[in-house]
């Protein structure tokens, strides 16, 4: 599904170029659940944001399904992202001024889904994640686990084929973390969603099918 060839990410600094990622070659197949691990500053999150098409300032080749991402322009990349990718953040990043239902509606509104259809999809999603009772609450009225559950629901509401998660349990206590990881496993096995997560926890990494390790911006174990 994803193929990276000789991918590098360089930050030009006053003191000289800084290689956040260096010559990464990686393949992730459809239906895989991959965990990226490594010490702080090893380039995990940078790699995840490149996979999620948030960052476009890299060199090398990136193939997403049959599409050569490195040949795409800005707008085509944005379309590819909207159509295929969902993202989960460590800090949840829910919009404080919107209710749970409205937070779920946001990605759909950017995909030009008609209003009635949006509302139907949001209702289904709320039901699927058992958060119907929270639909009119604001993020500040939810616990951390509940917020991350909404974050996962929001990432999946537009039915992406690839789910990217940046330390999704980093701000949760262990019980809540396990619930989220169980959910990931279910989504991967039952719904066939390809998942790539960044994690520091070997326990969480064990939920996946493969571990990719990074150190100093280089792939050390795949």
């Amino acid at each position, binding site marked *: 599904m994803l193929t990276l060839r000789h991918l590098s990410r360089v930050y030009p600094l006053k003191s000289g170029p800084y290689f956040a990622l260096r010559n990464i070659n990686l393949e992730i197949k459809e239906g895989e659940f991959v965990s990226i691990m490594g010490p702080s500053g090893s380039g995990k*999150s*940078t790699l995840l*944001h490149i996979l999620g098409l*948030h*960052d476009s300032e890299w060199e090398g080749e990136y193939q997403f399904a049959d599409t050569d991402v490195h040949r795409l322009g800005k707008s085509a990349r*944005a379309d590819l*992202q*909207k159509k295929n990718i969902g*993202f989960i*953040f460590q*800090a949840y*990043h*829910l*919009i*404080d*001024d919107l209710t749970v239902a409205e937070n779920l509606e*946001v*990605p759909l*509104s*950017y*995909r030009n889904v008609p*209003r009635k259809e949006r509302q139907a999809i949001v209702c289904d999603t709320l039901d699927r994640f058992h958060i119907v009772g929270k639909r009119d609450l604001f993020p500040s009225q939810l616990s951390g686990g509940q917020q991350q559950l909404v974050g996962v629901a*929001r990432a999946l509401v*537009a039915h992406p084929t690839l789910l990217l998660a*940046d330390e999704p349990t980093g701000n949760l206590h262990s019980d809540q973390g396990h619930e989220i990881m169980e959910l990931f496993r279910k989504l991967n096995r039952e719904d066939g969603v390809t998942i790539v997560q960044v994690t520091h926890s070997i326990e969480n990494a064990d939920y996946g099918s493969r571990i990719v390790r990074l150190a100093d911006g280089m792939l050390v174990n795949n």
Partner: protein
Amino acid sequence: MLHDLRLALRQLARSPGYAAVVVLTLAFGIAVNTNIFGFVSTFFLQRMPVPDADRVVLVTQRSESWPTPHAISFPDFQDYRERLRSMESMLAYQPMPAHLGTDDGRAAQRAWIEVATPGAFTALAIAPQLGRVLVPADGEAAGGAPVIVLSHRGWQQRFGGDPAIVGRTIRVNNRPFTVVGVAPERFTGFSPFLAVHGFVPTGALDTLRANGSGMLEWRNAPMWRVLGKLRPGTTLAAARAEADIATAQLVREHASTHQGVSAAIIPEHRARPDPMVADFLPLLALFFLGQVALVLLIACANVANLMIARAAARQKEFTVRAALGASRGRLVRQMLVESLVLAAVAGVVGWLLSTWTAPLLSALVQQGDLPVNQDPGPAWPINLFTAAVSLVAGIGSGLLPALRASRVDLVSQLKEGPGAGIGRSRHRLRDMFVVNQVMFSLVVLVFAGLFTRSLQRARSVDIGFRSERLLLASFDLTLQRYGDEPARQFCAALLERVRALPGVEDASLTSSTPFDYSIGMRDVFPENPPPSLRYGSTNVGCAAVAPGFEHMLGLQALAGRPLDATDTATTRPVAVINAAFAERCWPGQDALGRRFQPWRDGPWIEVVGVVATAKYMMLSEAPRPFYYTPLAQGLEGPVNLLVRTTGDPAVLAAPVRSTLAALDPNLPVYNVRTMEEMMANSLFAFLPLRMGALLSSIQGVLGLGLAVLGLYSVVAFGVAQRSREIGIRMALGASAGSVLREVLREGLRLTLVGTVAGLLFSIVLGIVLSKFLFGMSALDPLVLCAGVAVLLGVAAVACFVPARRATRTDPAVVLRAE
């Protein structure tokens, strides 16, 4: 879009304080713009309420001795009408006062009417509301029918809207006139600036006034306003070229009276309220529009600053939205919708504010005798302007913050959290806004100072006479059909009785009061004219006065004698001239005993006295030649009673009115006011400077307040942003004083940059606009220094408050929160 609108409304409902500050800030800016635009629209933008108003032009003349565009003589009008093929139709009219009465025994009342060529209504395609309009059969030449078409206002005010008014006989100047119709409500007069009571054909002039028909015959009496309607497709340039040729012909044909005369054709709406001020009034209006636009600019910069601060606080939201698929355009649209919603609310509030304050502004100008048209015209141009200004304010204040805030760096902001979004460039943008605010507010402050100082200078200028403790009252014996002898007896009796009133020091009479609209102007022909008078004549001002007038007014006698009781209708015509007259006509010679004719081949008038030159028409006028003749040797038109009192002149208003009423209960008396009131409200004296000073001061205070608010919010926001840094510094030993100095330095740095830019801008603008100032330079050091001092002082206070708050930062609390 509806989704964005809903979000915007909710965001604003969540932050009522922020919304209120933004709405009020913009509303003040919008309100002052709407108010000033209302004035400008009434004067210059509204067309006459007639079909094809864009084709209506004013045909005027200039001459060497009278270089501003002015009215023309009736014979000239007739020649133009015959010769100008570019005009589809032409008409002449003249506003004049009249005494309107009925036969029911009630006293006549003074009103203004327009005497117009009888084809005037047809020429402009004006249909009557009742009856008929004037028609050619009513007569253009002397001997026409004594008929009148009432204006809608006259019909309502004087005759209670009587539906049976057509066919009734009323008295105009004590003569019977038949009402033949009522003009439509929107048509207030051929001069849209006025709201007259009726229209009389030129043929009825001799019925209306003694010697009225002479006004239709005198070639050298420029007293008629002429309107022309251009033929469809004819350009103004073509009409002007044709008028130049026709005028050259007139100059050739009437060389004795028309030397140096040229034509000036002006679109009607550019010649208000009088063609004489057509050259500079639009520029003045543009200046005030520009100044209020600056106030709006300051308000927009202020709001933009608030929006940047708010966008910074919402950076996380924008980042997440971008990460979820929002394009930059969608983010910009969302923020612009918010600022447009705020601007729309501000537009409504601003419109309400302007509606409430417009009457207050109008009240500053007291109504004189001239019936100024108070109808503001259709509301849609002003409403459209308010909507446009609101839209501009919404986009102007919201666009840059939206563009900045939508430029999100997803990777770093998602990794590092919401604080990562506030970069140096965003601070620079805020700094730029503050610098602009300070700059513009200094500009409006400086102009407030310049106008105020101008007004002070104008008040202290030597006008050549004593204006204090003077009461004025006007009446018109000619309109009341007094003969010469009864009029003389009336005046003598009046002066005797008024001088006997307690509290009266002296009293006199004059045909024209300084700075009033009724000054007489004439081309006089001196005996043995100097070579400098190319055509042997010169344009001078004149007034007929009662004995002792010069002394009563306080004119400084230079030579000869004053006019006195020995100057009667039967003695030789004499005059007292001013020094400018003597210098113009007999430079370096003794003027006493010299003679001049008041018009070509007129009677010789001998100079018996010379007084110092005073101000007669405008404060800023160059020394104007002027002469006084005895009232006893020629009394025509209005008479102004001037009463010098020992105390407050206003107290004498009632006794003076009673004295006049005792002499003739049917004589309308008008313009009873003090000289100081008259000068304050005269377009030719203090009114422009007074309005300028007031409007500039309001704008100055608003601008300063808004700029200070902007500066305060920037410094306060900076302190809030740097609270962690300040906490660390204090934990490391920084003293409260050093923190205070550092925060103050940042705010004052912006103020200083803005002040320098504002000074330069003020100086450049001041040089351009110095013609509107009186007796001073736009580079007046006192005003510039005072403006800078006020701005710096207030800015220092605005910076000090948040700086002081910064010194109270508790490092333990801040760092624990981190």
